[in-house]
């Protein structure tokens, strides 16, 4: 039977953002990674192109995490005190496409490390792995504004991805990114208008649009995932309909949200069945992949493996 065809053709596409810089471009990365560029809704490959596969990053902390459950720590037990070795293990053993270096030592309520410590860590990690890196601060505005510029300078020319820029605090970070040739994570609280607002603010500071990655704020499975999912769908539809101010690729911090949930934590405690927590992380990630995620940060090596396999299936590779 001849059936009518209902193919969508969109006016526009998602912007491409390049992460990392090879020696020819003034960096020391072994390769660059491009995210974004979709001209179709997620994985409807007969209607448009998905030129770049979603990338999977893993978290690397600059101090040993004090709130990861026992079984979640296990795969990292031998490297937990050494961010360089940790990063290496994620890339070489667990297959991470890139790493997110979290400068948790800067937490004013923890070690309260200063800019010098951070600079050294950033340099060590850059030396240990040749993939592009994401750098985020401890999440305290004042400390972020102190540490991230130092990190930006220490990684100058490497074309990293730095965050988080929020509506109330973006100027220092935006300036540091532009001065040192980095990309920026624009974070907004699960709201399409606020997402656009942060992108506008950054654009007004002359941050090029193809240097911005959207963090829509991640709600974990069972903890508001549907809000993030629907906001991402709406933002992506907007991008395909040529709203340039929301046409940037998405980043989702899946691991930290999924492993904060009661269910995942309990599963990773002694005697628990961590496969539940891994499923929690995987399904959170899958949900976002199908809302258009371009870059996912995960925690457990098994999640990385499974999600990369799913991406292979989707991309037909």
């Amino acid at each position: 039977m001849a059936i009518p065809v209902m193919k969508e053709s969109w006016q526009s596409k998602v912007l491409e953002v390049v992460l990392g810089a090879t020696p020819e471009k003034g960096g020391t990365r072994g390769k660059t990674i491009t995210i974004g560029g979709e001209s179709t809704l997620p994985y409807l490959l007969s209607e448009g192109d998905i030129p770049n596969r979603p990338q999977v990053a893993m978290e690397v902390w600059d101090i040993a995490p004090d709130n990861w459950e026992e079984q979640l720590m296990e795969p990292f037990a031998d490297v937990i005190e050494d961010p360089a070795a940790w990063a290496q293990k994620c890339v070489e053993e667990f297959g991470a496409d890139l790493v997110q270096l979290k400068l948790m030592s800067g937490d004013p309520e923890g070690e309260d490390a200063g800019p010098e410590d951070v600079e050294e860590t950033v340099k060590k990690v850059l030396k240990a792995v040749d993939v592009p890196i994401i750098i985020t601060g401890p999440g305290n505005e004042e400390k972020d504004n102190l540490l991230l510029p130092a990190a930006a300078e220490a990684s100058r020319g490497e074309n990293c991805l730095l965050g988080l820029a929020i509506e109330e605090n973006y100027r220092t970070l935006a300036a540091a990114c532009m001065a040192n040739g980095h990309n920026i994570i624009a974070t907004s609280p699960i709201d399409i208008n606020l997402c656009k607002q942060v992108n506008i603010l950054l654009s007004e500071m002359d941050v090029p649009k193809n240097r911005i990655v959207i963090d829509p704020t991640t709600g974990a499975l069972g903890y508001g995932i549907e809000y993030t999912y629907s906001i991402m769908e709406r933002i992506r539809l907007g991008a395909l309909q040529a709203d340039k101010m929301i046409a940037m690729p998405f980043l989702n911090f899946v691991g930290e949200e999924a492993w904060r949930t009661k269910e995942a934590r309990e599963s990773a405690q002694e005697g628990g069945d961590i496969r539940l927590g891994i499923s929690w992380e995987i399904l959170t990630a899958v949900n976002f992949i199908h809302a258009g995620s371009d870059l996912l940060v995960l925690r457990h090596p098994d999640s990385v493996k499974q999600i990369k396999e799913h991406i292979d299936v989707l991309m037909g590779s």
Partner: protein
Amino acid sequence: MGLTGLQIFKLLPKTNCGECGPPTCLAFAMELAQQKTSLDKCPYVSEEAKAELGEASAPPIRLITVGKGEKEFQVGDETELFRHDKTFFNETAIGFELEDNLEEKAIRDKAKTIDGLSFERIGLELSVNLVAVCNTSQDAETFAKAVSLVMEETDLPLMLVTEDPTCAAAALEKCASSRPLLYAANNENYEEMTKIADENSCPLVVRGENLEQTAEITDKIAKLGYRELMIDPGSGGAGEYLEDLTQIRRLALRKKFRPLGYPTVVFTGSEDTYQEVIEAAVYTCKYGNVVIMKEPDDWKTFPLLILRQNIYTDPQKPIQVEAGVYEIGEVDENSPVYVTTNFSLTYFSVMGEIEASRVPGYLLIVDTEGTSVLTAWAAGKFDGDKVAEELVQSGLEDRVNHKKVIIPGQVAVLRAKIEDNCDWEVLIGPGEATGIPSFIRKNWQA
């Protein structure tokens, strides 16, 4: 895509008898077009007109009921491509395969395991929906026996997976009264399968080799007069299913294309247990109405059922948490007391942060009709009088040895009113839930 009043008028008897209510057939047709009345009010309408008009007013995706009794479920009758446009209505039904050539004990055990996949979370029960008994043996007697065994172990609705009409008939002798879902009619067997489904009044899945053939078969079956159908487009792999399920949803909704206006059925293809739940998650988000997996593991089924609940939540009606006192962690009389609203996301954020703080606490949830803190405050649903009243009525004063309550920083203005209305001391908490761990470390000595 309803018919206009004039199009309907042409199909009416034009007697102007007035027995339907309105004085003329034309007036009646106009009311029908606006869906203000129903066609059965006309005593003289012809069968052909009924069929044509009934078809035009039917929902774009047929609603199908599977099973009978407490655990029966309905799928279909969806109206949206994106949940944010309105909502998805009838949750994806989740089931598991059970092969009929297993030993009796293995059949019973697996049926029991599937039956036991039921979980409770914040007062809601989440369960799987069906058992798909597969005619792997290709033998009628074995199939019927397996169906009987499964029915002894579970009252979940069944799906009968066989393309052999003889085997289907044998199994239906055991279970027809519980309205199982029959899978599947194909291009060769559809006449016989339709007859069997019709005789036993059970819904039938059509599985073509591709989208086109699937539409062809449902069309032929509809011409035989049977419409209790679902469809499996027979796609090759997850990526193709995603495209086909999207096409089906779009064609049904936007073109009102009848041959594909039925709920969809998908079997996951992967042999890997994580990959199969990943596939099931994709179909749950993207237009799968019945999804069947192989391995009934509780650790993967629980998160999948939560994903389903999340995706099918009505965006206009946020999930509310029951009001009352929640204990987070191993609380004792020294534990802090927090208060917030009953919007689920608010509750989850605050609860998560209290847990992350590693200081157990009591969380008093006030009923604000599912609104967040600032919205509830602005609407007068979260004011000082109410919080004070809830605090007093909560009985918390008997459970802790202090009278300090932590309120959300965004509604610091409530402090005076609360303190006026009860003898609790108010501590102004952080503006965002993420500030709770550091707040409590600084401000609470147990």
